[in-house]
């Protein structure tokens, strides 16, 4: 075997220029593919992470039917046993209880429909960093603060400033009329314009009082220790809570985001597939020429007593060397680039930035730095190389010895 690898290695450098061109084509394909995939995966990770952190959490617990009919009557009681049951699940790192509904916000003669989020300030801030979104005024003073925080676009529309009063009107639990006046404690700015235009945050206690929904919630948002165990955690919670609750994962709740990621991922893979096909034909061209050029030499080797399969093995190893050298050099070259952009994401501007912000995601282009990217792309190219290597194998197994000797 050592002899075959030696012959294959030396054969590789018989036509240095051609081998270098082939290896370079694999190198550039790998470099490009790794950069592309790293950028795509980094962006998807960021989108998922930000979207999960800023809105739904990984898993939400609702009253049965809430997701289809988001009314204040579809709430559940925040009992100690329920809360303990959810938070005692091993993979759950934090639970954010929320009461969310809709209201009419009014000042003077201006009225606007808004979304109300009632939450526990300290927990909310520890996860969504809501306090960092305050651009004017202050964050909630404590969990019973009766002030509100509202998006800057909404404040502008309603012509409200810090210390002004906002009037909220809605339907409370079981048909109660919900109405109240609340001082504006702070103005928030979110990357997503829609959130700026319509969100009002208040403490959970204030929201429950406003909606006459004492101790009731619309959701528990769950953050997880290990997101990879999402399915298992979902299953455990689903099995443990019973049929009066609906348990949903983030991708069920953010279908649009999930679909956007999936379609983008598919188009990315399609581009990669085209790239790989081009590279595969490049390697194939080299192998084809190499096989034809050396037909006489192959014939001599078989004539003097080398079994065809051993000869095929040598050519197969040569092809593997080419693929492997291209993959290895491509991976080595792409690693520092990927690592740099992993540490220093590219800031986005213009339409791209707006699109990201609409999903409540930071407008940056981060790169993913994971072994999976290197392994996947490397494996794909090596598999392609192996497929291409089938040609000389087939050719060597059946070519005519005499015509080869005469060639």
């Amino acid at each position, binding site marked *: 075997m050592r002899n075959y690898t030696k012959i294959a290695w030396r054969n590789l450098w018989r036509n240095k220029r051609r081998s270098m061109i082939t290896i370079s084509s694999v190198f550039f394909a790998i470099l490009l593919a790794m950069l592309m995939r790293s950028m795509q995966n980094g962006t998807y990770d960021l989108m998922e992470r930000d979207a999960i952190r800023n809105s739904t959490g990984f898993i939400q617990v609702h009253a049965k039917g809430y997701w289809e009919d988001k009314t204040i009557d579809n709430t559940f009681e925040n009992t100690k046993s329920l809360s303990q049951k959810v938070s005692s699940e091993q993979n759950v790192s934090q639970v954010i209880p929320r009461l969310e509904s809709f209201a009419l916000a009014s000042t003077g003669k201006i009225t606007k429909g808004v979304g109300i989020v009632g939450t526990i300030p300290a927990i909310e801030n520890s996860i969504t960093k809501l306090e960092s979104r305050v651009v004017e005024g202050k964050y909630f003073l404590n969990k019973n603060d009766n002030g509100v925080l509202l998006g800057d676009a909404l404040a502008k529309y309603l012509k409200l400033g810090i210390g002004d009063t906002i009037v909220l009107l809605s339907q409370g639990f079981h048909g109660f009329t919900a109405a109240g006046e609340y001082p504006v404690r702070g103005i928030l700015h979110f990357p997503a314009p829609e959130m700026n235009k319509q969100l009002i945050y208040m403490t959970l206690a204030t929201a429950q009082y406003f909606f006459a929904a004492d101790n009731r919630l619309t959701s528990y948002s769950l953050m997880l220790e290990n997101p990879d165990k999402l399915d298992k955690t979902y299953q455990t919670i689903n099995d443990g809570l019973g049929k009066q609750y609906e348990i949903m994962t983030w991708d069920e709740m953010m279908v649009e985001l999930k679909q956007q990621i999936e379609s983008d991922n598919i188009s990315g893979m399609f581009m990669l597939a085209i790239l790989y096909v081009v590279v595969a034909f490049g390697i194939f061209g080299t192998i084809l020429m190499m096989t034809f050029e050396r037909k006489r*030499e192959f014939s*001599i080797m078989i004539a*003097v*007593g080398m079994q065809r399969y*051993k000869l095929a093995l040598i050519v197969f190893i040569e092809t593997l060397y080419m693929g492997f050298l291209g993959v290895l050099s491509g991976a080595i070259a792409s690693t520092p680039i990927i690592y740099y952009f992993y540490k220093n994401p590219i800031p986005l501007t213009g339409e791209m930035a707006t699109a990201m912000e609409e999903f409540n995601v930071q407008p940056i282009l981060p790169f993913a730095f994971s072994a999976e990217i290197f392994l996947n792309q490397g494996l794909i190219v090596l598999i392609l190389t192996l497929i291409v290597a089938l040609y000389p194998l087939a050719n060597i197994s059946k070519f005519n010895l005499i015509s080869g000797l005469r060639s």
Partner: protein
Amino acid sequence: MNVIETTNLHKIYNSTQVPVNAVDGIDLTIEKGEFTAIVGPSGCGKTTLLNMIGGLDDPTKGRVTINKVALNTLNQSKLIDFRLHNIGFVFQAYNLIPVLTVKENIGFIMQLQGRGKNECNARIDEMLEAIGLPDKKDQRPNKLSGGQQQRVAVARALASKPQFILADEPTANLDSKATNELLELMEKLNREENMTFIFSTHDDRVMKKARRLISLDDGKVISDVTV
């Protein structure tokens, strides 16, 4: 002791409009230790006959028997193995493996046979001495002259001590000096190792050295003379 026997050997090529009888019913017997030249004009069937004797080409009719083994009874893989262990080939265009050194080329067949490293190295050194190229052992073939390459090709064929050597126009690309050196080498090996040599040639210098001359024309043996 017979080494090679051909019985009613035919080779007909049908690739042209008119079928060509390249070998037309040849019966031959070649004994151990012979130094035989197959001669005749171009296209008379010398190479085709050698190819069939060497198991490189299948006869259209008839059979080749080597040491009582009929080649047509062997499948492709066994035939290759048979050639590996019984036949040494020397080709007109040397056909050394360009990526291997002289030493590696000489040892190539022995390595295919799976012989031990020490045995290979000892035999390689012996062959390098015999062909007078011990100082070139680490050179690649492209650094050698045509004559030197052909000597290495002979050494490669002989190193594994096959039953016989088939040499197709071995001197065709060599000048007089190289031809004489090569012939002397082959004669010496034939004499010292009792190796059977069969050449195809139309080189007078080779014919003069041969102890048996088989003349072909139009695929038939027209004379078979022992000198």
